[in-house]
């Protein structure tokens, strides 16, 4: 279907994924000014059920799952004993004994093994990824489009909340979640795989008058980077921990114990040795993953984990780990990115890079 729309496909984590349709910049601008529709069905979904499902999930992730209630989701990390990040994920609470974990495609197999291996006998973990599709409708016009397509106004749905309407967009099993990976308003729609094509078509048709464009992984990456969201495999790996990755806000060391907590308490006590910072180029040049980050003295102090041209700023932007010293991590600090024998001057900046935006 995506190929019929002129999509350029790429293999990604074992899936043929649409990299771009009309062009990354075009799709990116559409999401910032109107709306974009992404097929991100490659994401993994695990259903966790049983009397102690909540406590079990809480014991696996850094955030405090006990704060969830039915219809509420949270973003969190799952760590190894040494605090290294296995994955970043969403946890949805369907009921007191039913949770859904939404994980990265590239980590699905590892995550499932990890979660299953730690599950107590009374908790069941089921991989429902193959039967679950995920479409992300993102952008300032997302709720207008969803209302036109479904006849229902979902704009009252609060950030990180979800609904499971009885019947919507021709589906009895739709989940409408006010979440996303673009820094824009919008929803993520979970549905049975068999229904995804018709829901996609209904949204595209309804979205035409609002400027909706199909959007691919390329724009998804530039949008998330502008918004300052981490990408697993780039900014987060098993060699990074949530405190150095700037994910302290979802690491609740004082709440119920979780795997990796002891190691993270030690990191917190001593302070992380390095920190993930964002930066914006002050001259021509685009930071790329793997480039060295240099202090003004020319000394190598870290490396770039994500980099791109920002379509909104028309400047290079990126993220990377640097030695945790104020002169390298404070917004405004001048650093340099070294690539192919040339350096590009950058300033440390706190994302989002594209605009200051708050959602509540």
């Amino acid at each position, binding site marked *: 279907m995506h190929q019929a729309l002129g999509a*350029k496909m790429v293999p990604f984590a074992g899936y043929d994924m649409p990299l*771009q349709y009309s*062009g*990354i*910049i*075009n799709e990116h601008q559409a999401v910032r000014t109107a709306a974009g529709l992404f097929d991100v069905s490659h994401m993994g979904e695990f259903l966790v059920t049983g009397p102690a499902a909540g406590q079990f999930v809480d014991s696996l992730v850094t955030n405090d799952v006990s704060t969830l209630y039915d219809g509420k989701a949270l973003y969190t990390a799952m760590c190894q004993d040494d605090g290294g990040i296995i994955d970043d994920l969403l946890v949805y609470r369907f009921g007191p004994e039913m949770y859904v974990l939404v994980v990265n495609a590239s980590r699905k197999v590892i995550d499932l093994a990890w979660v299953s291996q730690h599950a107590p006998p009374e908790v069941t973990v089921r991989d429902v990824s193959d039967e679950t599709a995920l479409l992300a409708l993102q952008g300032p016009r997302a709720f207008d489009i969803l209302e036109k397509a479904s006849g229902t106004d979902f704009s009252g749905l609060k950030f990180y909340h979800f609904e499971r309407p009885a019947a919507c967009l021709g589906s009895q099993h739709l989940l409408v979640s006010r979440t996303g990976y673009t820094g824009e308003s919008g929803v993520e729609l979970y549905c049975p795989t068999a229904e995804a094509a018709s829901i996609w078509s209904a949204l595209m048709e309804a979205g035409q008058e609002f400027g909706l464009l199909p959007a691919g992984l*390329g724009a998804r*990456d*530039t949008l998330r980077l502008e918004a300052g969201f981490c990408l697993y495999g780039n900014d987060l790996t098993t060699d990074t921990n949530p405190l150095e990755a700037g994910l302290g806000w979802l690491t609740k060391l004082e709440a119920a114990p979780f795997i990796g907590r002891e190691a993270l308490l030690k990191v917190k006590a001593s302070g992380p040795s390095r920190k993930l910072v964002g930066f914006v180029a002050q001259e*021509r*040049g*685009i930071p*790329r993953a793997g480039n060295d980050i240099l202090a003004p003295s020319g000394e190598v102090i870290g490396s770039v984990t994500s980099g*791109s*041209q920002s*379509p909104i700023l*028309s400047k290079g932007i990126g993220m990377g780990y640097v030695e945790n010293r104020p002169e390298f991590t404070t917004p405004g600090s001048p650093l340099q990115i070294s*690539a*192919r024998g040339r350096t590009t001057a950058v300033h440390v900046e706190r994302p989002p890079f594209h605009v200051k935006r708050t959602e509540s």
Partner: protein
Amino acid sequence: MTFPEELRYTKDHEWIRVDGDTATIGITDFAQSELGDIVYVEVETVGDAVAKDDVFGTVEAVKTVSELFMPVSGTVTEMNTALDTNPELVNDDPYGEGWLIRMSLDNPADVDDLLSASDYADMVGQ
């Protein structure tokens, strides 16, 4: 996707248009399409003699950076300065306003070794 008959091509996706002992060089329609939105073109070899297959510049798209190779040996005489402010010309008009450099050829006969339009089209499967 078009590959004009009057141009010659390289396996690295450059094209060359010869006019006597000078030539204009750019990247092909296929190359710009594969790279996607081009945001910078860097050429720091103007005035330099550059050998065939050596790098004369780089082109940066949103997702990737790619080196540019000389199709034949010669001296880079000019770069397309319009690309400093409008790099998207390479996407919009790769054989016209999106040209990259002009050069003087060491030996105009070198061009005969390059791919014809139909050979290049076969190579990229178009």
